[in-house]
């Protein structure tokens, strides 16, 4: 995790959903994808990643199945469920609104 960009509460779940929106990934894959889409601003360690994955899975937003990695290591792959996709849309819109509101608020002079 980058020192300069704090991870706001709730953002981790959104990032995980977003990371999984293109294709199913295993744990490390999710971490790498988040690094990629945030341009390296966030590196999620396993101590935060796995609790988030399990939480989202138990809420029914993610589904898990066994798969094989590029280098033939068996691993648990997560993918977005239909409910997860809807949740991602909802969260994205909500987030966009927050961002708009905050920017306007902070740019007020």
């Amino acid at each position, binding site marked *: 995790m980058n020192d300069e960009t704090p991870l706001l509460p709730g953002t981790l779940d959104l990032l995980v959903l977003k990371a999984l929106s293109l294709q199913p990934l295993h744990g490390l894959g999710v971490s790498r994808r988040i690094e990629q889409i945030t341009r390296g601003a966030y590196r999620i360690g*396993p*101590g935060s990643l*796995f*609790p988030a994955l*399990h939480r989202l*899975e138990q809420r029914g937003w993610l589904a898990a199945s066994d798969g094989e*990695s590029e280098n033939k*290591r*068996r*691993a648990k792959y997560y993918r977005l469920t239909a409910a997860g996709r809807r949740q991602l849309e909802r969260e994205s819109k909500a987030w966009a609104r927050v961002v708009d509101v905050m920017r306007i608020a902070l740019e007020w002079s």
Partner: protein
Amino acid sequence: MRILATVRGLWLTLLRRGRAERSLDDEVRAYVDLLAAEYEEAGMAPGLARRRALIETGGIEQVKEATRDAWVGRGIFTFVRDLRFTLRTLRNAPAFSVLAVTILGIGIGGATAIFTVIKGSLLQPLPAVSDAGGLVTLEPVKDGTLRYGFSYLDYRDLREQTRSLAGLIGYDGTSMTLEDRRGPRRSAWVSYVTGDFFSVLGVRAAAGRLIQPADEEAANPVVVLAYDLWQERYGGDPGVIGSTVDVAGYPLTVIGVAPPRFIGAMLLYPMELWIPFTTVPKLVSAPGMLDSRSGRFLRLVGRLAPGTTVDEAQQELSLLAARLADAYPADEGRGIRVFPGAGMTVEERTALGKLPHLLAAAVGLLLLIACANVANLSLVRAAARRRELATRLALGASRRSLFGRLLLEGAVLAAAGALLGIGIARLLVRSQSIVRTIAGMPERVGLDVTLDRRVLIVALAVSALAALAVSIAPVLHVMRVPPGAVLKDGAAGAVRRRSFGQRALVAGQIAASFVLLASAAIVLNTFRRVLATDPGFDARGVAIASADFEEAKLDSAQVMAYRREWLRRAAAEPSIAGVAMASVVPPAPWVRPGWVFRGGEEPPPGARLDGSPAGGRRAYVDVVSPGFFDVMHVPITAGRGFLESDDNGAAPVVIVSRRLAAAMWPKENPIGKMLSLPAAGGRRRPAMRVIGVAGDVRLASIFDEAPPVAYMPVAQHPEEDVDLFVVRSRSGGGALEATIRAIGAAADARVPLHTRVVTEMIDEQLQPQRIASAWIGVFGAVALLLAAIGLYGVVAQGVLQRTRELAVRSALGASPRGVISLVIADGMRIAVIGSVIGVVAGAVALRVLQSRFAGVSVVDAPAAVLAAAAVCVATVAACYLPARRASRIDLLEALRCD
């Protein structure tokens, strides 16, 4: 979907735990492997890559634990784990756990049983009565104080005039003899009731029909049987309806059976027979009682008219009472008070309330001791666990989680205690005789003794309190002390400061058990004193035989012959010192007094004997044969006893007891005076000349002062029912009853004989009090045991804390004896303080006892000494073990062990 996922999650985490764990492990390990593979691809050596991956992951177990926290049902799982841990902890301290649970169980069980009994006896509505909530009790008052009973005429007026009551019934009850062909003659509770009694109470017959208003005037007097009586005596035979039974020697026709559980309208006196009140004057030979405003023999119960409140009824009845008071001189100054509910008079309710409350106080004290004790035990344990708890704190357990654990421990103990307590309570309550003893209730009182919700809530509240008591002590202990200090100090050093609270707790416990013990001793002493007082006769070696002439169908000439033959044979028996006949032999609590008058002052034949007739006094009547006074060892203090020559041909004579003589002719010589007793049926009987004065005898109850008694010679009163033979054995002993039966068989085998030993009859009377005092004694003993355990804990802990000091003392030359007495003195100090508090509290308890038990003396030194001795012994016993341990402390061991 979401719910489904949650359920699935729960299912996985709770029931498929192994699989979930394996899957989690695989997943985290895969993460490490994949990360290592990345580094290898980037050109790192495999070993180095792996190490780097592991470091970056930051500990597989930590990751797994963090992930588990995200699982649904994690709370449940944690709880189960904590519970398991707690059970393990408690199993590791079995003595503590068993003791704490037992103490709580006894406390909660006892308290619950008492609450149940109080509720069952005091809060219960009349059984088998429909809508008992709509009933009100009318109590007469005169000049502001409660009185007893209404006259029939007042009742009739009230019933006709009231609008606030939909129904008004009058009744009362008494004990009378019941005789029929179906079982032995015995006394039965008979209630005389107004004709609308059953209809107003809303009771339907189980068989036949119940008393109706028309029965009041019917020529053929009727009787209704209680269901229990019907079952027991008549085997539930419907054929009994229409047959005749004799009540007080008066034939009544059975018309029906009351429903099961119905006991009438007097909770304390479950009735067995109901008769129309119009029959009563014939039964008790008081023909005028229905025509007088001052013959107050009815209790009144009303049913509120629909929509009427108790207050409205009170207003209206006050008005009606005022009208009666204006109209009739006998009712002057009298009023009516209306109370909600029926079943007991206010007076009865108050009297009954006393004993359960006394015992409830005892149980409450016990409960308090139990809680204090468990708290104390856990304090002792907390001291022993200080190191463990401090270690856990030092290893990073939060104080909050530690507190949770300890609270859970308390809750587990309390729950076990509550379970045991409920078990004990059920056991106590199920045994009706114990309940009756606790409540001090007469036989056959219909008790509703099912444990109910209210009672359980009380028990649970108590156990919750106990849970707090158990857990708070060690928590406070731990919270106060920084873990470092504890760990450094070790087991023996620790906080020097002696726990004041703990000592106060133990002193309080000792005080409480002192009070209970002293109370038990006082009741016991009082009881022994009652036994030691001279009842006026000597029961040892005396037996009675009651002959059932009715059953044998003997006519009066045959009865006379039988009596003569019996007496002759008994007198000839060498093992028998004396024999006599009597209509009453003490103790006879069922006997009722009659009216006696000075000669010439008796009312004219057929006059009313209600209220208090001028010159009349209540006295017991005993019709006896000449030998009676000798056989019972009742002294003739003036004049002479009866002689064989005092028979039908001679002038009628009577012997009075000293008390009766003093009441009738104070400061005069009673010998030669005339005494008159109206005979049954109001017939005139010639006045009798007093020829002697007999010593006072506790004829009815062994507890009560001797009542006035008039003795009449059996030979002059063939009309009286004299069916008791009194026999005194020469040896004081054993085969007396067999001898009596042999005499009876020889005299006339057709006559059934029931023999009783008089000392046994006295024992029977003493039984309730004996058991009650035994109970208080048991409470006291249990309390003392609990207090001793508490004391043991405190002293043992004190020894543990002072190990070094005591070891140094020994090393410097203190003898083992010296060390032992040092420790015992420490315990004694607490015990003495406790006892002093106990004496003060005991003074208060004494006041309560005095109000309940007759003859309790103000200062009962032996009782106090007894209690103090018990406390002393318990203290020494509790201190001895730790003291001995203290005397054997090895100095090197003590100093090295830290």
